[in-house]
């Protein structure tokens, strides 16, 4: 692996950047791996990286049906934060946030993680109490969170509508200063390059079509590139978890829904942080290229279509413009959609399945990107040891039927939040 550095770029300036090597190999699948990870998104690649780096395993493959990072890793709004109210969630995401802060150096790949602050706006006294409660829960567990006054919010984001008679007047906010955003594709590419350097085989255009069973246990996978044996198999295909799990006869507490996002034409810096709201369902940030990145709620009906719907988009943009009226004359230039695993308590699922040797990582709803390093780390632990890491133990698949759900919003088992 050629090391990335400014010096390397300077050298390249003299040779036409011709000395760079492929970031990862394009290997043929072997007949057997100790561990196979299905899904070459950020989570799967991070899992492979930590299996190699932390657990010293080498005989690992990541199987990707298309091209790595082509699913939800490349179809989100790139927000990174750990500001959850409930302890199991903020502990997991905070572990991840710490990894984010060292990720570029760790991977020798600049993932452009920019801790510009993730801010939730409050629009009433009741909102401010809810924000304080969330912040207090985080602070008591050692996670940074600060309440902001109206003036502090206005200073950080001068283009917010601060008028008192706004429909959702801004009364203050809760900021996690160590939160921010990152370059999503780079996360997949960085982990892929890192994993590859340890000898992990990253096999693209290799779709899993079935599981090879010995009795009840999984001992390999059937793929479009042939049968591959495995000691353990980890599903890591959030959005399509139900589809892959069904090949092993499993039904999951998950419904797939479409989440869309959009970006405007690039403009000079106007949004300084990541803006979210306690009462509204939109999130706004500005990419390094100047586009305003914009997201809202998922479509709220089941779908595997990577297509958005105008009515959902119109609702999210209306909310965003009510917060930042200056966005009105910017133009939306591109939309994209991801298929998300909406789990039935809003929290992820990482752990064993009832099928021996088969593990699952999914149910990330619309919050998986920020979890990439924590998800990879804990899943690697689970796959390497066969046991949950303390951080993912609460996120077991059987928690729903047992009654131990982790319901951040308290909206219950229907993902359309009735």
């Amino acid at each position, binding site marked *: 692996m050629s090391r990335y550095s400014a010096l390397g770029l300077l050298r390249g300036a003299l040779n036409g950047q011709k000395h760079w090597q492929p970031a990862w190999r394009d290997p043929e699948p072997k007949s057997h791996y100790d561990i196979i990870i299905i899904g070459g998104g950020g989570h799967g690649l991070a899992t492979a990286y930590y299996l190699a780096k932390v657990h010293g395993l080498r005989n690992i493959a990541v199987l990707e049906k298309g091209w790595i990072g082509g699913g939800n890793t490349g179809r989100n709004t790139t927000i990174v934060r750990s500001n959850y109210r409930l302890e199991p969630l903020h502990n997991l995401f905070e572990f991840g946030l710490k990894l984010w802060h060292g990720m570029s150096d760790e991977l020798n790949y600049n993932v452009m993680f920019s801790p510009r602050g993730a801010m939730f706006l409050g629009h009433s006294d009741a909102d401010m109490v809810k924000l304080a409660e969330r912040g207090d829960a985080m602070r008591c567990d050692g996670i940074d969170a600060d309440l902001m006054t109206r003036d502090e919010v206005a200073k950080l984001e001068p283009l917010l509508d601060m008028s008192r008679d706004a429909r959702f007047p801004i009364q203050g906010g809760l900021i996690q200063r160590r939160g921010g955003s990152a370059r999503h594709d780079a996360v997949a590419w960085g982990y892929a390059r890192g994993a590859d350097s340890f000898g992990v085989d990253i096999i693209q255009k290799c779709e899993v079509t079935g599981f090879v069973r010995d009795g009840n246990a999984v001992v390999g996978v059937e793929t479009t590139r042939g049968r591959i044996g495995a000691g353990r198999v980890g599903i890591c295909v959030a959005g399509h978890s139900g589809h892959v799990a*069904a090949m092993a006869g499993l*039904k999951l507490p998950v*419904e*797939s829904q479409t989440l869309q996002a959009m970006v405007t034409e690039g403009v000079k810096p106007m949004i300084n942080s990541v803006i979210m709201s306690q009462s509204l369902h939109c999130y706004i940030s500005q990419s390094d290229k100047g586009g305003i990145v914009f997201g809202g709620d998922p479509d709220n*009906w089941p*779908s595997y*279509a990577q297509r958005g719907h105008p009515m959902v988009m119109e609702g999210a943009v209306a909310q965003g413009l009510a917060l930042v009226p200056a966005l009105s004359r910017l133009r939306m230039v591109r939309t994209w959609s991801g298929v998300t695993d909406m789990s039935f308590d809003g929290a992820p699922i990482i752990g064993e399945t009832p099928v021996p040797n088969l593990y699952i990582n999914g149910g990330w709803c619309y919050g998986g990107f920020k979890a990439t390093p924590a998800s990879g780390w804990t899943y690697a632990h689970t796959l390497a040891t066969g046991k949950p890491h303390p951080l993912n133990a609460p996120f077991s698949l059987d928690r729903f039927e047992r009654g131990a759900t982790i319901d951040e919003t308290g909206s219950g088992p229907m993902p359309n939040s009735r």
Partner: protein
Amino acid sequence: MMQITCPHCGPRAQSEFIYERTVDSVVPLDAAPEQAMAALFSRTNPRGVDEEIWRHTYGCRAWLVMTRHRVTNEISATRAVGPEALP
């Protein structure tokens, strides 16, 4: 935005409808606990055709069952559910 044929009102914009749940997740009133929890917490979630319950909330307020393809959004059938009604 889909166009959904309400069994009572005819083709209408999706904005008038709200998705409720899949037919396989209905918990019958007399379900045993295991059966009820299985219905609530496990889904076939097919990447293909499924039967879903929607409501024409902002129209005639009636419930309907829709057979829909999850990738193409092709709606092959809708049928009325609920008490007996006059035409």
